[in-house]
């Protein structure tokens, strides 16, 4: 059990690190949001699952309630994090900030 918890925590921290490195390395505002908004979500999911499992170490009703609360944190972050990311992107678009692109076309339309 402890091994699983440790592995999950390390994976979570790895995702958080990736998010931080990504914010520094990416070229512009929009592409920076990709690691910032979502590698964090994955890191949080993993470390929270690890914590929930760790709390369940000595099984009781109280421990189960605590780990359910931890899972509830993940649920709320999974709802709010995309919304917050979307709000930041929307602010950028409203301020008419042009996205960084490679040489060539700006828009790549799919479908209609």
């Amino acid at each position: 059990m402890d091994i699983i918890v440790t592995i999950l925590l390390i994976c979570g921290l790895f995702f958080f690190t990736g998010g931080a490195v990504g914010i520094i390395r990416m070229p512009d505002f929009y592409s920076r949001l990709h690691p910032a908004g979502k590698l964090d979500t994955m890191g949080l999911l993993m470390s929270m699952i690890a914590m929930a499992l760790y709390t369940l170490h000595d099984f009781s009703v109280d421990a189960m309630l605590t780990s359910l609360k931890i899972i509830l944190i993940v649920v709320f972050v999974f709802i709010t994090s995309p919304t917050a990311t979307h709000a930041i992107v929307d602010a950028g678009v409203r301020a008419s900030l042009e996205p960084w692109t490679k040489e060539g076309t700006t828009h790549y339309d799919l479908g209609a």
Partner: protein
Amino acid sequence: MTEQNQENHPQKSADSKKVPSRRSRFSTSFFVTFVIMFGIWLLLSGKFDLFHISLGVISCLMVAFLSADLLLPYPKIGKMPGLWLRFVRYIPWLLYQVFVANIHVMYLVFHPRMMELIDPRIMRFKSRLKSDMSLVTLANSITLTPGTITIYISVYGNVTFHVIDIESGKSLPFIMEARIAEVFDEI
């Protein structure tokens, strides 16, 4: 592509969403909201004696009375269990996709020649989803999977999103849209 042109009629979507009558406010959505609220109360309080449970019942009744139509604006009680079951089945698939896409973005972030690999673009497509709830689910699912961020989604289903490289934006939103259409029974 011919199907996509048909949903450009505003009246069609306006007709399908009828304003809920006052009676429905006190039956289905009120009851379901109360049950959800009370479940969260029990989970968060963790005390199961009579005093705390009665406090919970009173406050959940108040909240359900005041804001039942916010949580479930158009309740269709017959469809609800099937919808929630399909939604619960959708979540593991979404988590798997989020995981795979996360690995991809991690690979990009730690790659020494990252600037050659990424190719940020803004993409657009027309979704055939109709209800508000499925469009919100689509937008949030697109944003949750790394590599794609929803910039704008209109009520008629025009989705604009930013991608970090073309591969992550080419197929995934379409598979996702089909899955969500299945969940919300809009095939």
